[in-house]
C-alpha cells in the first residue's frame, strides 16, 4: 500500500470523558505504581523532596503542553509520522523547561543535571500523547495530562518522602525525626530508591488485592 494512502482512524472523541481521564491518571492508572512508567526519575531524583517535586513540575509542564499540542493537531497526523511529531513536540517543551529551570531555579537545575533533558524519553509523556492526545480533544487531553501529572506527583512524592525521612530524618529539609533515631544512609543512596519503590509497590498491590481476597474468603 502506498504510504500516502494511510490515514489515521477518525478521532475517537467518544472515548473516556475528561473527568474519567483525570481520575484514571491519579490512582487507577497511576503512571508510577500501576503502569510502572517513568522509572528513571522515580529512582534517580527521589533522594529528597525538593528535587523530586522540581522534576514533577518540569514533567507536568512538558506533559500538559505536549498533550494539548498533539491534540490540537491530531487531525493532521499521519500514522507513520506520529511518533516523529510526538518526539519533536516533547523535545521542544523539554528544552523550554530546561532553560526555565536554569534561569529561575538555577541550583535545582544544577542538582538535577541531565535528568531534565532526559524527560524527552519519559514514557509517560509519549504514552499519553499516543493514548489520549492524538485521539481526543484539547480539553480532555489537558485533563488527562493534569491527572497523570498528579499521579506522577504521588509516585515521586511518596518514594522521596520515604527516602528523605528514613535517610536524613528530614522532609523538605526540615527535621522530622529526633536525633536519637538512627539514619538509614542507604535510603538516600541508589539502592534505597529500589528498596523504597519495591516496598511502596508491594503496599499498593496488597491494598488493591484486599477486596478480591475478601470475596474469595
Amino acid at each position, binding site marked *: 500500500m*502506498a*504510504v*500516502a494512502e494511510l490515514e489515521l482512524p477518525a478521532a475517537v472523541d467518544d472515548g473516556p470523558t475528561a473527568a474519567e481521564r483525570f481520575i484514571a491518571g491519579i490512582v487507577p492508572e497511576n503512571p508510577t505504581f500501576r503502569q510502572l512508567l517513568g522509572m528513571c526519575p522515580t529512582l*534517580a531524583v527521589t533522594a529528597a523532596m525538593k528535587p523530586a517535586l522540581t522534576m514533577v513540575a518540569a514533567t507536568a509542564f512538558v506533559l500538559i503542553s505536549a498533550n494539548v499540542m498533539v491534540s490540537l*493537531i491530531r487531525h*493532521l*497526523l*499521519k500514522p507513520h*509520522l506520529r511518533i*516523529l*511529531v510526538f518526539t*519533536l*513536540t516533547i523535545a*521542544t517543551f523539554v*528544552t*523550554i523547561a530546561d*532553560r*526555565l529551570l*536554569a*534561569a*529561575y531555579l*538555577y541550583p535545582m537545575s*544544577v542538582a538535577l*543535571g*541531565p*535528568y531534565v*533533558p*532526559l524527560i524527552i524519553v519519559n514514557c509517560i509523556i509519549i504514552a499519553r500523547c499516543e493514548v489520549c492526545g492524538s485521539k481526543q480533544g484539547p480539553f480532555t487531553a489537558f485533563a488527562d495530562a493534569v491527572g497523570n501529572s498528579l499521579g506522577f506527583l504521588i509516585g515521586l512524592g511518596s518514594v522521596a518522602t520515604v527516602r528523605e525521612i528514613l535517610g536524613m530524618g528530614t522532609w523538605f529539609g526540615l527535621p522530622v525525626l529526633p536525633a536519637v533515631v538512627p539514619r538509614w544512609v542507604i535510603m538516600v543512596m*541508589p539502592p534505597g530508591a529500589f528498596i523504597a519503590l519495591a516496598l511502596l509497590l508491594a503496599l499498593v498491590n496488597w491494598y488493591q488485592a484486599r477486596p478480591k481476597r475478601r470475596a474469595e474468603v
Partner: protein
Amino acid sequence: MNPPRASFFSQSWLILLLGLLFGGALVAVHTNLSPVIAANQRAETLRQLPGLVLPAAELAGAEITVSGDRIAVRRASGETLDLAVAESEVAGHQLYTLAAAGGAPLGYVVRGIGSGYADDIDLLVGLSGDLERLTGLFVLSQKETPALGDEITKEPFRRWFAGAPATAPLVVVKSAAEAESAPGRVLALTAATISSRSVCDIVNATVAAVRPQLAAAASAAAPAEEGETDGGR
C-alpha cells in the same frame, strides 16, 4: 502516483511547519533567558573561586558572599577575608584573577569548555599564583551519563586535580595504585573512561593555552615592579 517531490511535501509539510514554529519558539526562549542564565552561571562561578584557589582547610565552615567583583569569605572563626576578582580573556578562555584586597594574585581560575561523552563539558580549573600547580577543578555544566560519567562533578574524581603539576599534561590511568604513584595522574572513573579523559583533555588544553601567556605577563610585570621599587628608593 504523485511525483516524488509532491509526495515528499505532502508527507512532511506538518513536520517542516512544526520544526519552523518550534525553532522560532526556542529562539525566543533562548534570546530572553540567556542573559538570566549567564548571570546565574557567573554568580555560581564567582562563588566557586575561593574553593578553587584557597586551601580547603582555610574554607572549612566558611560562608562565601559574592557582591559584584568582590568576594567575602567569612571563616568559622569570625575573621573575614576580602577578595577582589579581575575578569579578563586570555587565549580565548575566561580568566579570573583572585587577589586579597590590594595584594598580589593568590591564584587564577580559568574556564575551559570541550567535548564530553554526551555534550560539552564546561569547567573551571584553578592555577596557583606561581603557575606551577593546579589548585582545583569544578564542573559548571555537563550532561554525562547519570551515575557514571556525571561522577566527574564529585569530590572523589576532582581530588586528583588539586596539587597536580601545571607544568606537564595530566595523564589518565585505570589503577588506583598507579594514580597514587605520582602527582599529575588521574584515576579514570569506572565505566566512564571517556568522560574522565574528556575532562583531562579540556584541563590540559586550557592550561597549555593560558599558562604561557600568564607566565609571560608575570615576567614582564616583575622588572617593571622592581624598577618602580628602585625608583622609589
